[in-house]
């Protein structure tokens, strides 16, 4: 069982940082709503408030790690130009997708959208985390600020979802491969 180093980095980017971020989004939305909304709801304890602050900071780290590894580690492999007269485009995913009208949309729509919309996630969640770090439970007394934070967090979730979905589908059509080979285990001979 082997894996290429490029494949491993794609896994770290998508399944590590990206998927963890997506999983964390729903929890952040629920906790932000619960702690900051409704005057009749009981106030969050200092421990609950501290937990949400750490949780949001972890999301900020995950979001930036996902877009930075995507743009500066994996994307250069995806868009690498093949040498002239290269027949096998398996190591050049963008060119492989563009070489066939049946798959070119995965790049011209999917990747073109993904590579830009993904950046809305870290900007939005960094803002949401910074506002909650500064205001904490007092955010429940700033109705419009609270609504804006929830909307930005929701859009962050949506942007990360679009990026994650297209990332997975594009990598299924034209996987990022190459680099060294990592041997995970040696199978039995049949």
């Amino acid at each position: 069982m082997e894996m290429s180093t490029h494949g491993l980095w794609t896994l770290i980017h998508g399944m590590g940082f990206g998927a963890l971020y997506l999983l964390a989004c729903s929890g952040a939305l629920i906790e932000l709503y619960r702690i900051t909304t409704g005057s009749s709801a009981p106030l969050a304890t200092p421990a609950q408030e501290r937990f949400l602050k750490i949780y949001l900071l972890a999301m900020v780290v995950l979001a930036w790690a996902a877009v930075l590894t995507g743009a500066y580690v994996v994307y250069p492999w995806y868009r690498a130009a093949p040498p002239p007269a290269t027949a096998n485009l398996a190591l050049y995913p963008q060119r492989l997708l563009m070489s066939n009208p049946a798959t070119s949309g995965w790049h011209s729509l999917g990747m073109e959208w993904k590579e830009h919309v993904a950046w809305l996630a870290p900007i939005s969640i960094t803002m949401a985390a910074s506002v909650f770090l500064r205001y904490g439970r007092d955010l429940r007394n700033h109705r419009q600020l609270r609504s804006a934070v929830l909307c930005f967090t929701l859009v962050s979730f949506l942007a990360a979802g679009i990026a994650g979905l297209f990332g997975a589908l594009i990598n299924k059509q034209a996987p990022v491969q190459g680099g060294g080979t990592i041997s995970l285990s040696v199978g039995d001979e049949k």
Partner: protein
Amino acid sequence: MTQSASEASPQAPSLPNGPGAAAVLSAGIGTFALAVLAVAGDKSAAIKQALNFYHPTGPLSGVTTLAILLWIAAWAILDWRWRKKNVAIARITTAALVLLVLSLLLTFPPIADLF
């Protein structure tokens, strides 16, 4: 955009809304700048070339670097101006959300291709 009256809320806010408004509006500005730069880079070969800060990543490197710099600069300036103030939060959050929605729309290639 300052106001003297506090917003309607269950309790009196203990912190001014200015710093929060600065963070929200600057995030809207940052996301919108990213979308506009992405469209500009797609439409003009000269801009596309100018945005190619790091060749392996291509114009995406310039689009994101400039958008992040604009976002941080806007945040720093607005926070400095509004740190101790209560501002017209309804107008500011509306503007920020409009910018955010426009950013989402402009990053969608079929809509970006209309320009």
